[in-house]
C-alpha cells in the first residue's frame, strides 16, 4: 500500500493479475515438516518467493522465572528477517515491524495451543524469513503451525494464515510484491480451520463493507487450501519417519 504506482505497472487486466494468476489463485506453495535436527519441531515453507523456516522449542521452563505464568505456558513467537532476505540489507535484530508481527503471531498461536497443560513453561516459536517476498507473516504463521504440530505440542487445531486484498477495485487472494506495494488494500487473516475462528486480522488500505466481506471469505478459502498442504507435509514426515523405523 501507500506507494505511488508507476504508470507502466498494470496490476489487473482481462481477469489476470500482474503475475498471471486469477483473482482467487494462490502462489505456488511448498511445505516440509521436520527439517531441523536440534529443534523440537520444525517446518520449511516456500510460498511464492518467500522462504521461511520455523522451529519450536518447548514446552520448557520459562526463564527468567519472573516471566512464568503459574496457570499456563507462555507462547513466545519471534519473527525475524535474515539480514540478506530483503533487497536493502536489514540490520540484524528486531525492529518495530518485527516486534509487532511477533506480538500478533504470538497471540494468534496462543489461542490454539493447550497452554493450560504446561504451567510455568514457555513454548518458543522461532520464525526466520530467509528470503522475503510479500506475505511473510502469513507464510511464517503457517510454518509455525506445522512446526508446532511437528513438535507434538497439544493444539486444538493447526493454525493457518492467508491474505486477501484489493487491486484496482478487484478483491484478490494472496498478494504478490507489486500488489502489496501498489494495491488498494491488504488483509492478512489467520484462522483455526476446524471452526473458522479468526486468530489474526489486520487490514490496511481501503475496503467498503461489502468488499471486506468478500475479502474475508476469500482469505478463509485460501486458508483452507493451505491447511490441506500443512496436513500433507505432516503426513509425509510421519511416513518418512515410519520408513526409517
Amino acid at each position, binding site marked *: *500500500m*501507500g*506507494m*505511488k504506482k508507476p504508470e507502466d505497472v498494470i496490476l489487473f487486466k482481462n481477469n489476470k493479475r500482474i503475475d498471471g494468476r486469477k483473482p482467487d489463485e494462490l502462489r505456488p506453495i511448498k511445505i516440509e515438516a521436520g527439517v531441523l535436527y536440534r529443534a523440537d519441531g520444525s517446518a520449511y515453507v516456500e510460498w511464492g518467493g518467500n522462504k521461511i523456516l520455523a522451529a519450536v522449542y518447548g514446552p520448557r521452563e520459562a526463564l527468567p522465572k519472573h516471566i512464568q505464568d503459574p496457570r499456563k505456558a507462555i*507462547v513466545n513467537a519471534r519473527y525475524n528477517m535474515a539480514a540478506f532476505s530483503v533487497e536493502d540489507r536489514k540490520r540484524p535484530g528486531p525492529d*518495530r*515491524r518485527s*516486534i*509487532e508481527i*511477533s*506480538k*500478533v503471531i*504470538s*497471540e*494468534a498461536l*496462543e*489461542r490454539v495451543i493447550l497452554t493450560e497443560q504446561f504451567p510455568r513453561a514457555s513454548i518458543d516459536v522461532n520464525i526466520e524469513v530467509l528470503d522475503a517476498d510479500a506475505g511473510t507473516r502469513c507464510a511464517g504463521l503457517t510454518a509455525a503451525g506445522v512446526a508446532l504440530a511437528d513438535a507434538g505440542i497439544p493444539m486444538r487445531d493447526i493454525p493457518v494464515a492467508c491474505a486477501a486484498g484489493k487491486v484496482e477495485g478487484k478483491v484478490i487472494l494472496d498478494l504478490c510484491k507489486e500488489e502489496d506495494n501498489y494495491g488498494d488494500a491488504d*488483509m492478512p487473516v489467520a484462522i*483455526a480451520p476446524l471452526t*473458522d*475462528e*479468526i*486468530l*489474526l*486480522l*489486520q*487490514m*490496511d*488500505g*481501503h*475496503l*467498503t*463493507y461489502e468488499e*471486506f*466481506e468478500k475479502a*474475508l471469505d476469500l482469505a*478463509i478459502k485460501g486458508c483452507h487450501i493451505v491447511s490441506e498442504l500443512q496436513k500433507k507435509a505432516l503426513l509425509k514426515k510421519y511416513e518418512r519417519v515410519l520408513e526409517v523405523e
Partner: protein
Amino acid sequence: MSSSVVPSIKKDFIYKLISEGKRIDGRAFDEYRSIKIETGLIRKAEGSAKVKIGNTQVLVGIKMDVGEPYPDSPDMGVLTTSAELIPLASPDFEAGPPGKEAIELARVVDRGIRESEIIQLDKLCIEPGEKVWIMFIDIHVLDQDGNLFDASLLASLAALYTSTVPAERFELGENFKLPLSKDPPISCTSVKLNNAIVIDPVLDEEEIADARLTVATDKKGDIRAMQKGLSGSFTIEEVKKIIKASIINGKKLREVLNKSIRG
C-alpha cells in the same frame, strides 16, 4: 498490561454483569465514555491535543524539522510516529525503551494516518531529493484507563488538524497550516468479554478480555484499517458485528473531533 492482575473476584463480578447485559460503569455495550478534546496546549509544539476518554488521557504533540527524504520517495515529507507508555500513566508502565505494547500502539496509529493519506506529504517537500519536512507525532499517554488506541488516534488527528508548519523558524518563508485532507480515519475499539462484545473498554475490561478489534473507518463508513489483538479469537459474525458498530460510533467520534478542531 498482562502484568496487572485484576483479582478474580472483580473478573467474576464483571462477567456476571456482562451476562446480565450490564457493564461495570453502567454503559451500554455499544456506548462510548464521554470524550473531551483540547488543542493548542503546548507552546513548544507545532500542534498538540489532549484527549480524555473517561479517565484515560492521552497528549499528542507534533514537532517538525527539516531533513532528507527517503530515497524511494524523494518528493515527499517524512512521517514518524512514536508512543511512550511513561510510568506516570500507570503503575504497570516501566521506564525504558518502548515495549511491544507501545510499539503496536504507535504502529497502528501510524498506519491509520499514513494509509488514509490524510497528510499531503507531497506538499511537505521543500527541494525534491534534498530537503523535506520531517514530521514527528509523539503520543504521550498520561493516564491509562483503557482504550489507548482510540484516544491516541483521536489526539493525533486533533493535533495534526491544529498544526502549523514552522517555516519561519527555518527561514523557509511564511508559516502555513499543515496540509491535510478532510476525511480522517476514526478508529473504534471493541473487546470480547465472556462472549459478549463491548466497545471502548475501560482498563478493568481490557485486562480480562479475550480478544480486541480496532476498526478505523472513514466518513463514508468504508474500512481504512483493522487490528486484532489479544490471544482470543473472534467468529466471523463477531467481526462483522464489531465493524458495523465501529461504523456507527465512528460517525459520533468524528463529530467530537470536528467540533474540537473547528473551535
